[in-house]
Structures are given as C-alpha cells and as structure tokens.
C-alpha cells in the first residue's frame, strides 16, 4: 500500500524534500513505516534524533496500524508562538 510522508523544518531541510509517496506492506505500523523511511532516506538520520510523528494530523504512537493513503508527518519539537527563546 502507499502512504504519504511529509517532513517539516529541520527534517525537511536535511532531506531536501517536503513530501514523498512510499510503498509499504499492508499491515505496516507507524514503527514499521519509520524503519522503512530510515532505510529509504538514510540522510534523514531519524535513528539519531528525537522527533514527533503524526498520522493523518494526529500525534501517533509507534504501534498504530497504517492504512492505504495515510499521511505520516515527521517533525522536530515545535517552537511556534512568540520570540526566540521565549
């Protein structure tokens, strides 16, 4: 099945892309997809950094089962709001 992978901020910049379609086996969990992303895009180095993952715009746990067409987003700790170092 196919999922959509989206990256933001540092992750997007390191990878050099913001959005990719990725083929994963049916029944893949979020953890499975993260492993697939790690081997498909080693430059992301997601094994060596802390990040958050969302499935269909909801923060998600590793064991969550994915479905065809799901949107998986990876991003660093958020820093919106006010000034720098607020």
């Amino acid at each position, binding site marked *: 099945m196919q999922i959509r992978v989206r990256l933001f901020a*540092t992750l997007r910049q390191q990878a050099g892309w913001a959005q990719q379609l990725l083929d994963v086996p049916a029944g893949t969990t979020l953890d499975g997809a993260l492993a697939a992303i790690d081997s498909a895009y080693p430059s992301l180095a997601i094994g060596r950094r*802390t990040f958050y993952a969302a499935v269909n*715009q909801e923060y998600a746990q590793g064991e969550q089962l994915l479905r065809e067409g799901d949107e998986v987003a990876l991003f660093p*700790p958020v*820093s919106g709001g006010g000034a*720098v170092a607020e």
Partner: protein
Amino acid sequence: MKLFEITAQPLSLDEVARRVVRPDCGAVATFAGVVRGTTATQEGVRGTDFLNYEAYTEMAEALLARIAAEIQGRWPKVVAVSIVHRVGRLEIGESSVVIAVAAPHRGDGCFEACQYAIERLKAIVPIWKEENWADGQVWVEGPRQPELVSHLGVPGAL
C-alpha cells in the same frame, strides 16, 4: 471568518478581537507574540535579524481548535476564542501569533484562558521558527513535551 488560522498575512490585534466579540461580551483579553530584536542572555545581549516560521497547516489549525475546546471546558463562561499564527518571514516587532478571548465579564476567565492558549500552543502545535542573523541561521527546537510520544526512528525505541 476562521477562528483558528495559519496565515502568511500580517496580524492585527483589532482584527482578531473582532472575530470573537459578541453583543453579550464586555471583556476581551488578547496576547501577541512579537519578534524580539534583542534577547538578554547570560552571555550578554544577542541580536536577531528576522525569523522564518513554518507550519504543518492542517494539523496546526486542528490543534488550535482543540485548544479552544479545552478552554471552553475549563472556563465555560468564555464566549469565543480565536488563535491566528503567522508563517513566512517576520521582521523585528511584527507579531507571530495573536490570541483573543472574549467573555461577558472580565472575571470570566479571559485572562487565564489567553495565557493557557499560548502555553498550549507552544507545547503541541506543529509550528517551527528559524532564527536568522547576518552570518547564519538555525532552526529553533522547543523543549520535548512529556505528554507527547516522541520517536527515535528505530522501531520500538520510543
């Protein structure tokens, strides 16, 4: 008129306040997060040239609405909440976020709700900023949030 919005347009306190005021409201509390040009640190004053903000728009707007729902649960007399966050390049003195909370009376929780909204926004809403100086730039990462599951990329290593 959207109450929860990610926008590339400059923000106005008056405009966001108008989104929440109803005829039964006598009190509006607002908050603006402003791009600071100088920041006092232990190593001295640090300067900033400008900031770039990026958002995961769909998820950010959904979470802003969720924060407002949390506010309605905690301060049921609050009539309306609007939270608008800007993205793109922001100069010193410009507002990155504007929050407005309207209530019938000033004691109905509008101040507390406004403060709660900015705290929650900074904790859970997927927006990031890149700080720019004359000689470089860096993405600012906020602190890790214990309430959110973080990942390390290797299955099982949550």
